[in-house]
Each structure stands twice: as C-alpha cells, then as structure tokens.
C-alpha cells in the first residue's frame, strides 16, 4: 500500500476514515491492518531497543570530535577564533591539542594524514568506548531535502530545507527525518507503528519517553507513553492500583474519578485530558509494582538528569524483557542547555560540563546493559540527535546556530571505532573546517553531507524495518545515495 506520510491526518483521509469517528478505538482495525501491511514478514526475534538521546539547543559537535593531525588541527583552531585562554584569548573556542595518548583513529580511513582525531577532554569514557569498538560517529549529518553542494544551495531555495538555523524547525526535521513543513509524525513513532504488532503487550506503547512530549515518537497510531525519570508515583488519596475493593473513602473517591475518566466528552480538550489520565492509570496498574521491584547493580552518577533518565530506561528494558511486554521498544531521553551562545568555554554550565554529564551518563547506561547487570548490550543501540552543530567562528564567548553536525551511536551492535562520513552524496568526509571552504558558510556552518533520513534509516533497519518500509517512513530517502550508512 502507498500512503502519504505527511501526517496522521493525511493517512486517515486516505483511508477514507476522517468521517468514521475520531476515537482511537474506532480506528484500531484499520490501524492494525496498517501495521500488519507494513510489518516485517520475518517475525522479530529477540529483543531490540533504540534509545534516542536528544541534545536540545544544538550541540557544538565540532568541539566534540576534533582533528588531531597538525594541518587540520591548525585549520580548526584558526576557524574557532584560536585556542581558548581565560586571560589571553577569552573569545577563542578551540580546544588545546591534547597529548598523543588521547588520540583516536578512524578505523574507516587508512590514511594517517586524515584519520587522527581526539574527543573533547570531558569525554574520556567515550574515548574508551570508541577504542573498544562500541562507539561510532556519524559526521556532518543534517537536515536536507536531497544531497546538495554550495552551488545548489545558492541556485535555488527549494534545494534546501525551510527554516534552517531555527531550533524548533530543525529539531522537528531531525525528529521527523523528513525536511518538510506541515508534518506531524516522527520517525520513531512510525517505526513503532510497524513494530508494535510484534509486541506482546498492546497496552504499553512501543515508544516510551522519559522526557515529556516530543515529535520523534508520534506515529500514525503510536502515541508515546510518557514517564518520569523518578519512576511511577502513586495518586494521592486514590487506589494504587485502581480500583480497590471496599467502601473506604479512598475507594469512593477513586470510583468517582474513574467514572469521570471513562465518560465520553464532546469537548476535545476534556477528551484529550481524560484519555491521557486514563492511560496513566492503566499503565500505572501494569508497571508500578514491577518497576519498583526492578533493580540494577550499576551505579549511575548522581546529580545527572540524563543519567537518571537512562537509569529508568535500563529498568524499563529489564522489566520489559523479564515480563515479555515487548520485543521492540524506542526510548526518548533528553539533555538541554546546549545553546551556548555565551559561556561555552567557561563557567559551571559550559560545554565541558555538558559533555561530562553526557559521557558519564552514557557510560553508566552502557555498563548497566553489561553481562553482569541487564545483559542486553547487543540488544540496545543508543544514539544522539541534536538539531544542528554551531558556527565554528566565535561570537566572543560562544557560538551561534549552524547546520551539519556529528552524532554518536553506542551499542554492542554498533560497528564502532569508526567515523561514518560518506552517504554517497557530493559532500563526504570530515569537512574542511576553513571558513568559507567550498561547502561551508562564512562562519563555518557546514552543508551536511549526510541526510538525517540516512542516519535514521540505518537505525530503523537494525530494528528490523525493511528498506521498502523505510522508503515509506522516509519519503526522501531514495534521493540519497545510501539507504544504510552501515554503522550498526
């Protein structure tokens, strides 16, 4: 079947279903067919999960992964307004060249002239995981409508996505893996649409957010289940789980609340609210006791919001496998504060502090997936998304919005120790970081060489989604050279 994937609305319209009632229940038969139609013919075997770590604000990725060889390092340092020094060059954004022991080698590149890099010194854990072959970098990825060069960019605005450099729009384009306006679906949610018929428990969404609402996990029939990193709380003065027997005041109140939540509301705000609340009650009933009884032996860093979120993910993975709730899950966690227009190189919340938080949280999660704990390292792939990298050139104490960026993928299935920078388009390789180099702008904003959909489709295929299904989920994928970057 062929469907427009602009929105669930378009899908419903195509299904001739807009007039057949707005409730999810009324749509379920059709949506189930949709899932079946797209489902992988080979049954999903074993458990797999994707964990999206979204870095809100635009991670300055060109200070996360830096060339080590002299020629390219010097170019980098010059474009970043020189090496930062609190007294002699407070506006500089370049990191100092570290000792050779910090050097990493891109296993995809045999040339020593171009395969030497180092990671931000705040990320020693990631350096180790890269060297162990568990971590890969996807280089110069960004939202594109098709592969382009600078001449394409200047020739016609239809050659590049709308609203470049805007946080909200570029975030949407990463979460949609489709650089088009007017879209409401995310690629994780659409993967969930395809994968969820294979999950045993239909109550628990295949998409679980520990970080609130997001577009990434919204599918045609998939709505993310939103949890708190603190786990599940009881509802005050009500039955937990609900209902409870007897004539206690608690039971009486609980019955009244449930009666109101189960009512039909003609106002959509009331209906939307009651549906969410009811789902919350159902899933609390399902998960609360089990999650409270699920423990990890790994110690997660404290005072680290991302680590707290990933700890809950680790518990949910352990519980989901133990209870056989699901064979495919897609999690969403976030970190903010990457929009470092100022204070990038100094202060308590500078880029180094953020990357320390990120690296320690990812490392703890990786450890928790190890054989002595959850034992799912080969079943889980963690990956980052962030709306853009930033200008190489300083604005005096930070950097501004850019375009092409670097993302990380971590997991036992990841073909790590390598950089993936070739999507088969006209721009490939680690970019030339000279300002105004052929495919970057005056402040070092890079035209991406890899489209978001190529990155996303690679991850989707690891989950068992076929290439033809990817071509539905990612409508522009066929315009790019490679539909799989091979990093996992």
């Amino acid at each position, binding site marked *: 079947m062929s469907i427009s994937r602009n929105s669930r609305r378009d899908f419903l319209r195509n299904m001739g279903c807009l007039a057949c009632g707005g409730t999810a229940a009324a749509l379920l038969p059709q949506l189930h067919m949709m899932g079946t139609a797209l489902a992988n013919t080979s049954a999903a075997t074993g458990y797999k999960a994707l964990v999206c770590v979204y870095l809100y604000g635009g991670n300055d990725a060109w200070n996360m992964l830096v060339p080590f060889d002299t020629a390219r390092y010097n170019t980098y340092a010059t474009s970043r307004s020189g090496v930062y020094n609190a007294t002699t060059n407070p506006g500089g954004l370049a990191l100092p060249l570290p000792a050779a022991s910090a050097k990493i080698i891109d296993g995809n590149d045999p040339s020593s002239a171009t395969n030497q890099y180092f990671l931000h010194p705040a990320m020693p854990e990631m350096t180790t995981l890269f060297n162990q072959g568990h971590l890969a970098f996807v280089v110069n990825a960004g939202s594109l409508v098709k592969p382009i060069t600078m001449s394409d960019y200047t020739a016609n605005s239809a050659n590049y996505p709308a609203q470049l450099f805007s946080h909200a729009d570029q975030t949407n384009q990463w979460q949609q893996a489709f650089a088009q306006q007017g879209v409401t679906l995310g690629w994780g949610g659409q993967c969930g649409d395809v994968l969820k018929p294979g999950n045993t428990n239909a109550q628990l969404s295949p998409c679980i957010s520990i970080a*609130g609402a997001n577009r990434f996990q919204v599918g045609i029939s998939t709505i993310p289940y939103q949890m708190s990193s603190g786990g599940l709380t009881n509802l005050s003065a009500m039955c937990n789980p609900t209902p409870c027997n007897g004539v206690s005041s608690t039971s009486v109140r609980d019955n009244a609340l449930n009666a109101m939540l189960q009512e039909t509301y003609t106002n959509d705000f009331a209906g939307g*609210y009651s549906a969410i609340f009811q789902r*919350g009650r159902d899933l609390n009933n399902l998960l609360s006791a089990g999650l409270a009884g699920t423990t990890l032996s790994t110690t997660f860093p404290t005072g680290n919001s991302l680590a707290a979120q990933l700890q809950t993910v680790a518990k949910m993975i352990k519980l989901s496998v133990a209870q056989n709730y699901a064979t495919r899950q897609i999690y969403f966690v976030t970190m903010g504060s990457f929009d470092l227009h100022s204070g990038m190189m100094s202060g308590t919340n500078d880029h180094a502090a953020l990357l320390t938080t990120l690296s320690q949280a990812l490392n703890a999660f990786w450890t928790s997936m190890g054989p002595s704990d959850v034992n799912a390292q080969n079943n889980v792939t963690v990956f980052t998304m962030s709306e853009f990298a930033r200008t190489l050139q300083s604005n*005096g104490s930070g950097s501004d919005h850019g375009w092409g960026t670097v993302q990380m993928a971590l997991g036992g299935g990841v073909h790590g120790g390598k950089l993936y920078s070739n999507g088969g388009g006209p721009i490939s390789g680690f970019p030339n970081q000279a300002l105004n180099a052929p495919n970057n702008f005056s402040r070092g904003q890079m035209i991406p060489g890899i489209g978001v959909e190529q990155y996303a489709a690679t991850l989707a295929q690891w989950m068992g989604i076929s290439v033809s299904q990817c071509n539905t989920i990612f409508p522009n994928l066929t315009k790019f050279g490679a539909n799989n970057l091979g990093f996992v």
Partner: protein
Amino acid sequence: MRAGFGILGFALVFGFVPWAGATVHDQLFKGSFDIPADQPASVNAAARFLTQATFGPTQADINYLMAQGYGEWIDEQLAKPATLGEPTVEAVVNARTAGGQKVNNTQRLNRWFWQAVYAPDQLRQRMAYALSQIFVVSDQSSSISQYVVPLTQYGDMLAQAAFLPYGQVLLNVTYHPMMGRYLNAYHNVKATFVGSVQTTSPDENYAREVMQLFSIGLIMRHPDFSPVLTNPLDPESTIPTYDQGVITQNAKVFTGFTWSDAPQGSGPPNYSGASFYGGGLTFAAQYAPMACWGTELFPATGTGSGNMRHDITTKAVLGYGGVGTTNTIPANQTCAQDVTDELSIIATHPNVAPFISRQLIQRFVTSNPSPAYIARISAVFNTAGNDLGDVVKAILIDTEARNPPALPATTGSCSTGNCDAYGKLREPVLSLTAMWRAFNAKAPAPDQYGEIAMIGYGGFLGNFGQAPYESPTVFNFYLPDYQQPGVFADSNLYSPELQITNESTSYTTSNTYYQFTANAYQGMTNPRTDRPLIDLSSLTVNSNNPAAMVGTLNTALFCGSMSTTMQATMKSMLVNLNGASAQEKAWSAIYVAMLSPEFATQR
C-alpha cells in the same frame, strides 16, 4: 532603502520617560443603581468571564462585575496601577541574607503566587503572565538563575508595560538585563579582527529570537494569521520572513550592551577606568535598562578603555515583504538610534498584529480562535493610537470570547463539524490559583524575614510542567502550534497546554492539587504554615446535603457548567462518603473536581 515610516515619531514614543498614556481608558463610574448595558447575563456568565480575565473568580469579583458590566470592569482594571513584586522580594532577600539564610527562586515564586491570588490588578497581572509566556526569560538558565530580585522586577516591568503599545513592551524587554543575559545581547560585542582577518562575529541569539518568537514568526501572515502563499493551491508555498543573512545583520544591532552601572571611565581622551565587564553591583543596577556602549559614550575609533563595543556599520535588516526584502539601518548611528530603528522596523512588520494577537487569545480564551476573531483583534492592534490594553479588551469582549458555541450533541469527527475544540486546557498554575480564589484561601502570616509562604509543596515545574518564569527554554512550556496526537493533529487543531499534559504529569499535577486542598484547609489538625489554607465552610455547611455541596462546587469552580452526568457522579461520591468527616467530604469534593476532565477544560 531606509524604512519609510516615521522612525522619529516612533522614537518619541519609545524611551524611558514615564509613559504618559496615549490612550485614556474610560474611567467614568456609574451610579450603583444603574444596570450596566453590558451586564453579564448571569452570575455564571460573570464567573466565566473572570475565569478568562483573572486568576479565578471570587464571589466578590462576580458581584462587582455584575454591577459594573464588562466594559467598565475592564476599563477600571486597565487603569489600576501594577502591584509590584520587586520591593517585597528585595526586602525578603536582604533580610534572609542578613539572617544567614539561603536565597533562591522560592522567594520570587512565593511573591508571584501571592500577587496572582490577592493583587487587585488582576487583569494586569494576568496579562503580565501571558506576556511572560511570549517574552520568555527563565531561571532555568544558569545565566539568570541567581538573579532572584531582578528577575522579579522583569515581571514588574511586564506588568507595568502590560497595557502600553506593543513597541514599548518590545523596547523595555530588549533593554532589560535579564533578557540581555538570557538571550545574550548583554556583553554582545561588534566583530573583532586580528589584522584584517575577522575572528569573531556578533552573537545571533537575540537577533533571531526577537523576530522568531517575540514579534513576527517565521513566515509571512495575513491579518487573520493565515499564511501568505505564493501559490494559493499549495499550502506549502509560504514565504519566509527572513533568512540567515538578515539574522547576521540584525545581530550587529544588539551589540554593546552591559550593566547600567558598568564604569564608563574618565572620559576623553583615555577613558581610564572604563570597564565594560564591570558593574551589576546593586539590585537596582541589575534591573535598570542596560547601557549600550555606542558612539553616544565612546569615540567610534576608541581602543582600550575607550573601546566602543557597538557595531556601527550599516545593517541590512528585516524587510516587510518577506525573505529577499530588507530595510537598511545606516552606518555611524548611536546604539540607541540603531536599536530604536530596528525595533520600530520589527514592530511595524505586518505579521506582528496576528502573531501576537493569536497568542494572547490562546492565553485568555481559546487555543483555536477563528481566523475572523484573529483578524478583528489584529485590526484593533493596528489601529493608530491603540495599545495592548485596547487589544486585551477587544479579546475579552469579542463575541467569540463571550458567546461560546454550543457543545455538539455527540463526539465525532471535526471534518463533519461534530467536534469541539473551543476553549483551552487550563494551565495547571491557573487551576491552582482559581481554586484558591474560589475557596478564599488565607495566606500564612509573614515569617521573620517578611516572606509569605505560598508554595510549601513546591516543584511546580516538574509536577505541573510549568511555573512562572521557569520555562525550560525560550520556547515556553508549550508551543502555540502544538498539536496533540489524535483528534487535534488529525483535525489540524492546536492544543498548547496538552504539550505538558502526559501520563506522568497527570499524576504529579493531581498530587500537587491534593497538597493544596486535603492538606491545606482552615480548621485542620496541625495546619500547615507553608501554604495558604482554604476555607471549606461553603461546603461543610451542607455536609449532609450532597446535592447542595455539588451545587456550591458547580458555581465556585465550574461557572455552573458542570454536566448532569458529572453532578450525579459527584453527588454519588458524597453520598457514599457517609463515614467521612464534613471536612473530608469537602476537600474530597474539591480535589476530585479539580482532577475532572470538565474542570481541566476552560470553555
């Protein structure tokens, strides 16, 4: 080409002279024996209006509104001076500091909630809160999290400017050091060079968000907010308002800002002692409009201490015809002239009226205003001499605000006209204040530092997904264009507040309501001293009459709109609570009502 409208005239409107008031709102009082022509049709209609226009109806306000009529009530509110938070918070902060106590945003939030519940200038405070969700600054940013007093004053600034012309609000916001620090105009400097090589460029943060979020948005709009299309048949054929080139140029305008008390040195020729990075030494200096180190203070060629940080090169900034069109700000102007020019260019853009009007309607009345409603408000917005007071009045007295469509008989698809997306989900913050005001919450006495505790059960941002001046990002707690998956997204309808409503926050929000009802009423054993105590007597007086209790609840919290189904459910609950105390029946009624889908909705 230089913008061809009255920049000079506009500049006169701007500036920091006390606002004289271009519009004199009608303050004639009627005799109490007159029945106003626009008297609310019923007490419930009055309560409904006050739900939109205030932090929640009280019996006293309902009576007063019935006597005044809508127009008089609004005009009187427009004329009320702003209740300020800064003097109180500064005194509390000073007392706590002297007493060796920690200071944090609890002090600010306690005062904010006190004002929300008790300030007489309800419409002004409500408008300031609405504006705070457009001109966002937040203590979640480490750059201002420690600035408790000046952040409080930012709220005062919005309250004082709430009914001024939009351009004046934009100017005050731009110069406020909390906005400066939040979006980096503060300490933003002109490009620097090593030899002839440019090594840094001005920070683009404020230059971008002032247009994307505070004024015009990303695409060209008609006065009814519909997008301008190059091809009427193609909804994707929108016209961007600007491109990255305009941002880079605009960034040059917002350079040279620092604390008002940063030492400006001894004057020519050496300006010794000037310190761009100094200052900010007092609370007053931390909220006074920022100084701008342009040619008004330093020579254009100054170096060292006399370095003039503002960029005085020519600037090709926002045009009125969308991307590709520009206005030009000439070279060699003072910083103040550049900023005034730029903000007047932005404020004159045709997008401003629909962009701002729509968001204000969303905050007060409905998430999905009709295009005609937005167009009517845009017309008021754009009428010469009008200000935001006229705009909010027009929003509230508009027929679409006052006359809600009838609820459809059955639920169904919006494509058949059988759905209802009128109104909005209540913000949790406003649900709490409405409950407090409906049940005459009594605040604790000030503590030894002069602080009145309101939020003993804190963590609103985590529990509600929102708290005043605590947005996670400059994009507010929710987007004006958020579409909840399901009927809203399917029908291309908007539901901003649903963005912070999920399985987790539905529990944590409810538990917060529990703490302020079941755990905070007058007459309880060991009453809490860290939060207001509500008065249950209007319910307990009828503790053996469930129907009467439901009637009280219906009037106090639901503007009389509680469905018969819900009335039956609530009555049944109260009947079955026959073993509970009168007080438990009362708080149970309020608590369960607050969790109901009908209370969660403002219609």
